[in-house]
């Protein structure tokens, strides 16, 4: 076990501190609300000589990810941060980073996508790039943001897959919390030294990266990438195990909160899970068999594991902080239902799309969800898809 320092940090500060302790070779980034602070604080570390990093203050997020690809392909430990429109502008390059199997780590502060323009939290930015081939990890609070960043670099470099760690815009990014930090030396030991296998600057073994891959090879290469994403589940769990051994803080693919003997449960990602825990505690005191499932890893999606965890429940409510625009439900709900279907489990699954554009999600909102869940569990008719907290 390592010694921890108890500090007060915002989510952005926590992510920047993690980046400082990881001490990447290159950070290329562009400012965007509410993620600006991550790179701004990091730039001050560079200015004060606290890191060895070459900081590339690019002219756009597209160039940020392009420069990260250049650095990672060249053989360097590489990180960046962004949000919302920035992630959208990067989208083309996110796919390329993943396809080239480059272990870049990105700190993403979840924010709604335009239009209408809005700077507050929802998950539409991260969901927009869920098919890009990145591992996606959500954080409930500042502590998790910090812990996830430290684990992300090891996951990325072991699995050869880029990793995005998200926090919720303003709610976590600008909210100050008590958290525990590892010492610089312990982080250095935990993340280890990055030794790339094949890299551009290795003149002993020159390679061509990003070749044109036509009908005779493309499919095989994509199949390998798909397999790597499947295999990354084990990498994520192995890194979490080592992290728990050192810090006492355990992480899995998802967290099960008061799920023992639960009959109804809410599934929620990010900061909302924290709010839901308060509601679950209150309901449990009243004797309601309520629980919470908090997916931490959205990509790869822990399909079998989640289906097993949900199998014994009477009814489930999936909370989606974005909509799929598929004219039926949110992206998390689609995944949950697919997982249950393949497991042969027929279950009442309610979907609540909430909090778009930073609309506040309160304890009463989640109490309302549990109320409807209890009704659904008793067989009462309840709307399958609801938009929570919206005027209509």
């Amino acid at each position, binding site marked *: 076990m390592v010694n921890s320092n108890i500090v007060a940090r915002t989510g952005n500060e926590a992510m920047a501190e993690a980046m400082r302790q990881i001490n990447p*070779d290159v950070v*290329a980034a562009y400012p965007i609300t509410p993620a600006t602070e991550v790179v701004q604080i990091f730039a001050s570390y560079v200015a004060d000589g606290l890191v060895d990093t*070459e900081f*590339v203050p690019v*002219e756009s997020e597209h160039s940020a990810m392009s420069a990260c690809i*250049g650095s990672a392909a060249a053989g360097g430990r590489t990180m960046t941060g962004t949000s919302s429109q920035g992630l959208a502008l990067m989208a083309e390059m996110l796919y*390329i980073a993943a396809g080239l199997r480059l272990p870049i780590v990105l700190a993403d502060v979840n924010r709604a996508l335009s239009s209408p323009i809005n700077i507050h939290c929802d998950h539409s930015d991260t969901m927009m790039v869920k098919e890009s081939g990145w591992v996606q990890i959500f954080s409930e609070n500042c502590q998790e943001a910090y812990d996830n960043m430290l684990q992300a670099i090891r996951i990325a470099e072991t699995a050869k897959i880029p990793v995005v760690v998200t926090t919720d815009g303003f709610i976590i990014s600008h909210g100050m919390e008590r958290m525990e930090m590892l010492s610089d030396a312990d982080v250095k030991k935990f993340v280890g030294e990055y030794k790339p296998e094949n890299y551009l600057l290795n003149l002993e073994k020159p390679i061509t990266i*990003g070749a044109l891959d036509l009908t005779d090879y493309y499919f095989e290469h994509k199949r390998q990438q798909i397999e790597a994403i499947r295999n990354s589940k084990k990498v994520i769990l192995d890194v979490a195990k080592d992290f728990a051994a050192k810090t006492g803080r355990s992480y899995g693919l998802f967290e099960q909160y008061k799920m023992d003997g639960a009959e109804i449960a809410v599934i929620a990602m990010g900061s909302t899970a924290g709010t839901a825990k308060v509601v679950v505690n209150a309901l449990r005191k009243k004797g309601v068999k309520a629980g919470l499932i908090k997916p931490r890893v959205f990509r790869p999606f822990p399909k079998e594991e989640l289906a097993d965890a949900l199998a014994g429940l009477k009814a489930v409510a999936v909370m989606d902080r974005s909509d799929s625009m598929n004219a039926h439900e949110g992206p998390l709900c689609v995944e949950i239902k697919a997982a249950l279907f393949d497991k042969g489990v027929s279950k009442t699954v309610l979907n609540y799309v909430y909090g778009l554009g930073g609309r506040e999600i309160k304890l009463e909102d989640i109490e309302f969800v549990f109320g409807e869940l209890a009704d659904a569990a008793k067989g009462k008719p309840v709307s399958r898809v609801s938009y929570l907290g919206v005027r209509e």
Partner: protein
Amino acid sequence: MANLKDLSKQKVLFTGGHRACAGCGAAIVARQVMMAAGPNTVVVSATGCLEVVSTIFPYTAWAGPFLHSAFENAAATVSGVEALYKSWIRQGKYNKKLNFIAFGGDGGTYDIGLQSLSGAMERGHNILYVCYNNEAYMNTGVQRSGATPKGADTTTAPVGKVKKGKEQYRKDLTAIMAAHNIPYAAQSVVGNWRDLTSKVEKALSIEGPKFINVFQPCRLGWSYDPAKTCEIGRLAVETCSWPLYEVIDGQYKVSKPKEKKPVTEFIKMQGRFRHLLKPENKALLDDIQAIIDKNWESLLKKETCFAQVVSPKPA
């Protein structure tokens, strides 16, 4: 500077066997630039003809390290490579001296890649960006670009019953690069190996961001006999349609042709300008000659005027 005999003995860094068209000027640019740069050169390329013909998996024409990521971002991508190199040198993790060269066509440089190019130049990376400029989107089938000259026939600004090819003048990208106050910006051409290789050597001897705009005849898009690539390149220079010059720390150095030929000498060899030789298009041809004359005169003025300006020594 190496002579032709020395160059021919060097290790070939851009090899044969690639799939470029017969008479392709881009392949000549790549080969000559790599001859001048030598080993220990890292190449980044934008999507485009050069990347497509030289890296069809599982083959590559690049004997040294090569990276391609996308179309609009060769300058940003090479920025990241160079940043990592700087970081490693500073940390004592690497000790070889390397050149960093990015290649982009005119589409990937003048148009979709202009922002990332401008950013990289402004940030001052120690890179050489080479634009192989064939004045249209050749890889996708001869569409007009910001580099396409007025009057040229392309598939998105075609010659029709009422239109006579591209209606706008091409942008002056070399001037835009020079306006970034980079230490070295130049124009070169396919068809003058000595000019191109010496400019590459000079550029690589200078610390900081460098840009060379290489005029590159394209036999497919310009529609001419593939044997004439170098000859057409030289005619562009002799007609002052594509002047050869350098801007070194703000000072212009122009290579003047012995005799300035009329632009028709350059135009008459190319299918893309065929319509300009018809009597009814004489006014357009005159306009093209007039703008060449004006630009040439303006370039010569820049050479003499800026020679009187003394640059301060950097702090």
